[in-house]
């Protein structure tokens, strides 16, 4: 089994924080169902993390800019790590990811195995 990183990107404008616990729960449910489905196949390696909207980008020569999204419309909203035998299998796991419902994308990248790092 190899590991693959799923990076979730979505447009910055649509990323409004939930207003109430009910709203939060309604937002979380499709994610929980989708991740629960991957976990039930024993293919979830790490449930990763969600990222907030705030951020800084550090560039050479002590240039620091606000936000990760100055040049692009989309920002990274979070990531998880899955287990799969091939890139195709990993890609098919991304099917049904709730980010796709709000116009976002999932970038699927294979993680270089530890022993190949050098």
């Amino acid at each position: 089994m190899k590991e693959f990183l799923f990076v979730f990107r979505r447009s910055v404008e649509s990323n409004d924080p939930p207003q109430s616990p009910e709203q939060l729960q309604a937002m979380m449910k499709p994610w929980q169902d989708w991740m629960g489905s991957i976990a039930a196949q024993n293919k979830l390696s790490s449930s990763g993390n969600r990222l907030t909207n705030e951020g800084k980008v550090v560039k050479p020569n002590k240039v620091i800019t606000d936000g990760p999204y100055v040049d692009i419309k989309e920002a990274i909203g979070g990531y998880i790590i899955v287990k799969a035998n091939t890139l195709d299998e990993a890609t098919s796991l991304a099917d049904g990811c709730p980010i796709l419902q709000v116009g976002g994308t999932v970038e699927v990248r294979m993680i270089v195995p530890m022993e190949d790092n050098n």
Partner: protein
Amino acid sequence: MEHQQLIPHLFRTEYRKIIAVLCKMFGLEHIAIAEDIVSETFLLAAETWGLKGLPKNPTAWLYTVSKNKALDYLRRDTLFQTKIAPELNHTDEGHPETDIDLSNQNIIDSQLQMLFAICHPSISNEAQIGLALNILCGFGAEEIADAFLTSKETIYKRLTRAKEKLRSEKIKIELPPPGDIESRLETVLSTLYLLFSEGYYSASQNTVLRKDLCIEAMRLMVMLTDHPLTCTPSGYALLSLMCFHASRFEARTNQDGEIILYEDQDTSLWDKDLIAQGVDFLNRSAGGKQVTRYHLEAAIAYWHTLKEDTHEKWENILQLYNRLLQMEYSPIAALNRTYALSKANGKEEAIVEAEKLNLDANHFYHSLLANLYEDINPEKELDHLQRAWTLARNTNDKSLLAKKISSAIGRK
């Protein structure tokens, strides 16, 4: 109670208490001495109570006799004089009498410390359960063998090896230092959970024995949560989980020891008091910051105490399994999640998910698929029932599946 029944009863309740106190005093490396002393005491009880009649207070008699035997042993034993006495830091020189303390408090403390000693990370899980049953619950090798469906000799060897390990690892009967209690408790809780599950899910036909295993696991959990140093939210969650499961004990088997499935159970046999206690422990488990797998499993078990099939119930169970699986994968959780999905969102959706599970060698997997295909595709239902029957190992599962197969054929 006649002494013929009283002695086995006292053996079950008192053996473990005296053993814990004596072991605490002698050290785990001399566990055999403690076992000999307590066994001799019970042998003497069996011999004399029948002839001379019952003592006024049989328990006190057992304590006094074992205490005297221990003191005799200490007095004449050279090993004690040279090896143990110098190590007994709390002894008055030359007066070990004051040290055999069979008070309630010391019994509980000794048992709790013994629990941590047995659930030491260097001891294998299997051995921990055996030792817990033997030393803390007073089960003999024969009973343990019956529960594990194995031979007395196998268990005897396992116990001997485990006790040897306790000795060679020089494990002390004491509570871990406060900073280590939480991490050591993880092993203790998982061992008690296994002990409970062994009783709850064992294929042994001996339902009385199986229930005893569950009761013992719960008794030890109560001991843990009653003590201020070892009482934690995750402990309450596990105890709550045990209460919810145990509440169905009477309803889940028939007179022949055959399993009655959840949906077919007579809810009037569910133990309402245990359910109420489970709810109380579940509330107390909400104290910490952490949500453990015991919290999630207890919450799932709570929803199962409500018999009525509502969307709310199954949606909640589904979400709890989603979280549980993200925390820790297990085939049974994956199957249960899929079942909850079928109840919350319908069988068609669940079939799609079930086909992804890759559990072809698991008979529960085929039982689940058979359930999902019922009414949708009778051919596939029958096919999966037959595959489940081929894969099932124990007679309970086999006979249950055989019944389903004949009823599926009847419906065609």
